[in-house]
């Protein structure tokens, strides 16, 4: 398989050749116009592909954002004689702002709720276009847009063709550069597991806003280009139906694929032209097509083809996991920052959380010393996981506070804590299942990148340097946990035990000062648990403080320096392993009374009697 970079260059080259040949063949004005329109729609589809395919946000109002760009450009050009470049810039800016505003609700709602917001937005926009006569020209629209003029060159259709093509190439490269960068990875991460993304320091709201702004800016650019191509704009091009067709383009082509939006947009535009002959039945045929695509190719053309390709070419190679931890790989020592010099890595003061009437964590005081392994144990439902969620910012405390290396962090969001060096794993492993094993670890480095969005989009030297360095380090971390052989596999295909290892490698990518492990031994074999014990000790030796929530008593006793025992949300015992081990309160809470006042059922069974018995 070619590297993605080579693929990109090949696609760009093929595209350029196609356009040159197309022009040399001397197309009719109609053909030229149709191709230009298709290219513009491709730009919208690319933007939507970033929004849905990367960030997992479904917009049913994209036509309105596209329309906003078109109307802003048209209005400036017609009413204020603004020339081409500033009008396009204003179109992009207006749409991007609108995208940022629309992104706001995604902080709180997703799925059907979000779909309704985007639908409503689209309908409001359409109505404003029709009703606000003085600005939008009402149902007639804005007519008489002058041809664009750049530095004295009039953008006649043959010249404009290349302007549109250049914009499409730009959009395509933006798409590629986003997908293959920390931003794309972070967007995919937020779509696949919000919890894990937050725990790795990703600001969900920020990432979703970014996806929305990029997608809206591209729609705005396309809208502006459309206005100067068509020379009039009218509300009919920006209706709910068009939002649906944009969605269809992206789904038909293949969500999240590089080429999908191009393919989807061209197929739909040309099919729509062909269906013109059907007249009244055009919409019917269109919707039959939509349903058929969903049935036959739910992953779209490119997605389904690449599935097929992988299916037929990749011989099922057995992957071998290496023993772990691999001691040849160094763990970066967690060094204490000077200004927070303290030997208490984490202190909780009277930490309490209530859910409804239930007090899950009740006035818990905990002191965890730097560089130690501190276990939290207790029976099911004792509040261990709730405490862990409070410490890592997933729950907000009802009262009490948390000190992290001396800093008061009670009530802070989980991504803020992650940025301060607190990493965690999850009881039911929260991997980014559809991302590769290597990408999972790379998401862990998200907060350590210094290169900005601009540097990333332009692939400037610092971006390349960082990307290279973090890839190296990610490979090393995979080596540490013995998963190098799996680097390019999707994480969801890993066996359960390996998923746990990957989750730990990903948490280590954050370079944590404090690592919270939530039942890391659950589901592991005895052998794997031995490895895990070694890894935990290795981390502690490198000054990484570890908090361990675990059921596996033997392991807890073996690796911990201190143990806190919880029951009914309260600390019932705390101290060293020896202190806790023989505490009778602990024995009763944790192991049950172990002495039932009842007898084993009689070995000889009586005849079945009524209740629940034989039918």
């Amino acid at each position: 398989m070619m590297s993605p970079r080579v693929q990109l260059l090949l696609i760009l080259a093929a595209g350029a050749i196609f356009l040159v040949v197309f022009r040399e063949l001397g197309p009719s004005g109609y053909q030229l116009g149709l191709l230009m329109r298709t290219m513009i729609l491709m730009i919208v589809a690319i933007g939507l592909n970033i929004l849905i395919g990367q960030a997992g946000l479904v917009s049913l109002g994209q036509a309105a954002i596209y329309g906003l760009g078109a109307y802003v450009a048209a209005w400036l050009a017609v009413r204020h004689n603004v020339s081409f470049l500033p009008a396009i810039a204003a179109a992009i800016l207006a749409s991007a702002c609108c995208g940022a505003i629309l992104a706001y609700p995604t902080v709180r709602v997703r799925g059907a709720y979000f779909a309704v917001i985007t639908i409503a937005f689209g309908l409001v926009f359409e109505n404003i276009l029709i009703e606000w006569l003085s600005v939008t020209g009402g149902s007639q629209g804005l007519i008489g847009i002058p041809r664009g003029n750049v530095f004295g060159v009039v953008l006649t259709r043959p010249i404009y063709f290349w302007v549109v093509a250049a914009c499409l190439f730009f959009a395509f490269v933006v798409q590629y550069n986003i997908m293959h960068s920390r931003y794309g990875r972070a967007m995919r991460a937020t779509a696949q597991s919000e919890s894990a993304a937050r725990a790795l320091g990703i600001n969900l709201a920020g990432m979703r806003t970014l996806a929305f702004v990029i997608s809206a800016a591209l729609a705005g650019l396309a809208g502006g280009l459309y206005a100067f191509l068509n020379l009039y704009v009218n509300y009919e091009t920006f209706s709910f139906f068009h939002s649906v067709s944009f969605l269809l383009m992206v789904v038909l082509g293949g969500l999240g694929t590089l080429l999908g939006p191009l393919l989807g947009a061209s197929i739909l535009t040309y099919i729509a032209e062909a269906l013109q002959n059907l007249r009244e039945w055009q919409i019917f045929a269109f919707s039959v097509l939509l349903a058929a695509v969903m049935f036959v190719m739910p992953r779209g053309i490119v997605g389904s083809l690449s599935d097929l390709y992988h299916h037929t070419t990749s011989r099922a190679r057995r992957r071998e996991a290496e023993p772990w931890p691999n001691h040849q790989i160094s763990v970066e020592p967690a060094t204490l920052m000077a200004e927070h010099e303290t030997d208490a890595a984490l202190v909780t003061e009277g930490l309490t959380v209530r859910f409804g009437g239930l007090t899950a964590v009740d006035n818990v005081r905990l002191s965890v010393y730097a560089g130690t392994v501190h276990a939290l144990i207790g029976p099911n439902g004792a509040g261990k996981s709730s405490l862990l969620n409070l410490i890592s910012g997933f729950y907000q405390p009802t009262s009490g506070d948390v000190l992290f290396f001396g800093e008061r962090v009670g009530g802070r969001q989980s991504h803020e804590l992650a940025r301060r060096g607190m990493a965690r794993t999850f009881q039911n492993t929260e991997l980014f299942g559809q991302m590769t094993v290597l990408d999972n670890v790379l998401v862990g480095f998200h907060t350590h990148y210094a290169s900005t969005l601009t540097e990333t989009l332009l692939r400037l030297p610092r971006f390349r340097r960082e990307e290279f360095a973090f890839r190296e380090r990610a490979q090393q971390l995979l080596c540490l946990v013995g998963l190098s052989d799996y680097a390019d596999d999707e994480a969801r295909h890993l066996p359960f035990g390996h998923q746990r290892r990957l989750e730990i490698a990903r948490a280590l990518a954050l370079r944590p000062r404090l690592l919270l492990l939530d039942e890391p031994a659950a589901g592991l074999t005895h052998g794997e648990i031995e490895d895990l014990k070694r890894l935990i000790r290795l981390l502690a030796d490198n000054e990484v403080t570890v908090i361990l929530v675990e059921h596996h008593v033997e392991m807890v006793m073996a690796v911990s320096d201190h143990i806190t025992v919880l029951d009914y949300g309260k600390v019932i015992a705390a101290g060293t392993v020896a202190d806790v081990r023989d505490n009778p309160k602990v024995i009763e809470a944790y192991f049950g009374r172990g002495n039932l006042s009842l007898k084993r059922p009689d070995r000889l069974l009586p005849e079945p009697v009524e209740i629940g018995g034989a039918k």
Partner: protein
Amino acid sequence: MGEIVQYLLNGLTLGGIYALLALGLYIMWEASKAANFTHGDIYMLGAIVAVVLTERGLPLFVSVTASVAIAAVVGALIERFFVRPFNTEPHSIGWMLTTIAVGMMIESAATQTYGSLGRQLPSILAEKPIRLGGAGVYAQELLLPIAAVATMFGLQVFYRRTRLGRAMRAVAADRMAAGLMGIDSNLVALIAFALAAGIGALTGILIAPVLPALPTMGALTGLKAFGVAIVAGISSARGVVIVGLAYGVMEKFIEGYLSTGARDALGFSLVILALLAFPQGIFGRGEVKKV
């Protein structure tokens, strides 16, 4: 004064439509955690099938029954073939696309066969307007809000007192546990979609004597009902009826005191604002996700 009463009554009629359709969406959502973008078109289908059958000379009662039955079958088919296969994961969006597609198919097929001319259903309740507080209104129009409230109470009894209703609530609350009780949740979802479609068709039939039945009457109304259901917090029957009626009344007042043009722009803006203020809907229950 007469003006206000007039807007209020007309608004309640319109709101009754939204409330009834939103109740259908609520029924479907409870059973399958998916909604149905064809619902507006089912409402339209109910009206035009009844009109066509009556025009063919069938007695009103027969054409109404047939229309509701046809809609119920269509609803069941939609669940089986366009929702169930595309609603396999919690965040699936496939069903949105497929039901939008089916909705467009129904609408364009109806336009081709029925034509774009609106026709009314005969009704003795829509012959003479009643005078009420200086306003005029057909008895037929008053049927809609009454039907919405009655359906809400009927559903309440159905959900609490009948075996099937209890099964539906069980499926809504916990599919797995429902299965362990011996409840076939796929069948329950199918029945829920049929029931919702039946109510949707009946709504179309109730309004058809006043509002001419048209192939385009469904799409926008369906979207508004969807917005109403979501704003209400789709898991509350009482909520969707209250918000539905309120939305209808609000639309009529906007039409009356501002303009018809401002109606949808303002209405949908309010939908967005309401969702920003109440992300789980006004009457919705928050779903707490455990980490």
